[in-house]
């Protein structure tokens, strides 16, 4: 079978009644991807294009007709500048920046530490712990935020001894604005770390026994083994994790949204960029501004994804 089918000519030289079949297979290829392609265009490409269109036009301006369709007036970059100057814009990105810093450091350090501990530990207990670490993933989304709202309520929390060590005696104290990035990082770690530990554990298991044994013969202790041998061998998985976690982290929405509800508005409704965009669209009815911010975020996500796909050698296409 080989790659001949991509070129029409060699197929014909096979001498069977093949040419028609190969053309048919070509068409069959399109048929198999057709439905997916429709969804990709309608719910992946089209919304992005429409958001870009909205971000560069203004609804209030006069409409311009281009042949059969009328479009809104071109606004250049003014929506981007206007949202950039909004008094909530910089704080929202600052919040995300602090949150991402805490979250990525905690994620990398603890996931690697736990994965290495699991890998170097009592082998028969590994699947058990790995599963328990992974289990909170079942509570992803609003359930996890609600659970942590309970955990951070000193009145009822099973962790009240930790909270009282930190001198937090009421919910407004634990949810103080300065604590929010760390709290969101905590929630993200609680739901997401287990999945990454499974992944890292798998990557570590891929290191051949010979490599580890020869390092031991050379006199490496457990620490050297972990830091000098195992870590460099799973480095690309760490990069992979950091980029994915970064891209996902810029999108923060459910955590501040729910904690805002739970704390009677102590958390600002425009805490994160996504919230601000949502707020501008629904409260101010300014879809152009909302689109401008979501295009900002879209670009960040797109850059992270492109970097990973084309630069990391993580995915070979074919």
């Amino acid at each position, binding site marked *: *079978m080989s*790659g001949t*089918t991509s070129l029409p000519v060699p197929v014909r030289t096979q001498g069977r009644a093949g040419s028609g079949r190969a053309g*048919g*297979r*070509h068409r*069959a*290829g*399109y048929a*198999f*991807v057709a*439905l*997916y*392609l429709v969804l*990709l265009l*309608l*719910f*992946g490409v089209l*919304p992005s294009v429409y958001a870009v269109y909205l971000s560069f036009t203004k609804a209030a301006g006069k409409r311009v007709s281009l042949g059969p369709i009328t479009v809104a007036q071109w606004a250049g970059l003014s929506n981007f500048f206007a949202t950039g100057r909004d008094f909530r814009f910089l704080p929202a990105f600052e919040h995300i920046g602090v949150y991402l810093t805490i979250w990525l450091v905690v994620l990398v350090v603890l996931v690697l530490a736990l994965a290495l501990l699991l890998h170097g*530990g009592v*082998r028969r207990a590994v*699947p058990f712990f790995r*599963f328990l*670490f*992974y*289990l909170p993933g*079942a*509570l*992803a*989304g*609003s*359930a996890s935020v609600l659970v942590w709202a*309970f955990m951070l309520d000193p009145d*009822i929390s099973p962790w009240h001894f930790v909270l009282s060590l930190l001198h937090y005696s009421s919910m407004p104290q634990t949810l103080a604005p300065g604590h929010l990035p760390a709290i969101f990082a905590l929630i993200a770690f*609680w739901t997401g770390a287990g*999945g*990454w530990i499974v*992944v890292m554990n798998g*990557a570590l298991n*891929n290191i051949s026994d010979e490599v580890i044994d020869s390092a031991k013969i050379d006199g490496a202790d457990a620490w050297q083994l972990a830091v000098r041998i195992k870590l460099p061998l799973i480095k690309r998985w760490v990069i992979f994790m950091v*980029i*994915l976690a970064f*891209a*996902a982290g*810029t999108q923060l929405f*459910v955590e501040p949204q729910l904690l805002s*509800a*739970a*704390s*009677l508005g102590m958390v600002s409704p425009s805490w994160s960029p*996504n919230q601000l965009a949502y707020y501008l*669209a629904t409260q101010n009815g300014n*879809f152009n501004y909302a689109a401008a911010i979501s295009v900002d975020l*879209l670009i960040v*996500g797109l850059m*992270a*994804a492109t970097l*990973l*796909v084309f630069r990391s050698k993580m*995915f070979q296409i074919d």
Partner: protein
Amino acid sequence: MAHVTAQPTRRQPAARAPLAVAAGPTRRRRRLLSRSVGVRLAWFIVMLAFTAFFIVPVIWVFIAPTKTDHQLIYWNPLAFGSFHTFLRTWDEIYAFQAHELLVWLWNSARYSVGGVLLALGCAVPAGYGLALTEFIGRRVLLSITLIVMIMPASALVLPLFLEMNLLHLSNSAWSVVFPFGFFPFGVYLSYIFFSSTIPKELLAAARVDGCSEWGVFRHVALPLARPVVALVGFFAFVSDWTNFFLPFVMFYTDRQYPLPVGLDYLISSTSAFNPVTSAANSPVVRPELAMATLVAIAPVFIVFLFAQRALVTGMLAGATKE
């Protein structure tokens, strides 16, 4: 998030190693036994500490509905209340706005099932087409799929909201089911599966025997693809069921909400976290909220419990490239 995290291992050429490791466990165990008991004890203590961090909140949610709000405050946080209280908590939350919780449950079920079926119907044939047929633009489509798969799905939520507004589809079930059906990660999983486990020769043989292209897929490839159908179905289900942002922006009437958005509505409309203001007028307080959380997580939790062995195996060793 869960679905993205699960994926990289299956891409690794040598991902079969976790199974192969079984060759040398006895040697390893002997080495461990020779280590001091203290090291192993320390290991277990660290592991148990993290287990507590991950598991205590889960246990707490299961226990909380067995207590009254008063008991939640004054009893040991992990003490079990009574089954009787559990039932009373259920009655209170069931009564909330004429059993609205069950309406949300039903909404969650139909949006998720609709999304999963659509995702499977698109992703499995598309993965097959990308892996085992040739057509112009195949590599481009594959690259786009990878990029969209890695981009956080929530980056598209507001653009989708703007689009659905334009199409007057917001507040309808379709506004979430269609985007749920667009599941590039499922396409990628299927692509990896078909390109690594189904030999092209097998398909060629079926063609020689007179099978049509569709027949080859339907009668040869699909029966072999049951594991990947289950895997894609699982990841699609978990991500659809737990999705908050998309339904949150799409629906503006509470009877349309799925459970995750319903939880947000419960918190804001009862202010259960601020009992001073609400205890007098609302029977929905913290135990009731915990009960609602239980209902919201139950399906995914059950799937996690029962599918875990298959899942971890699937994540680590499922489809490997030759």
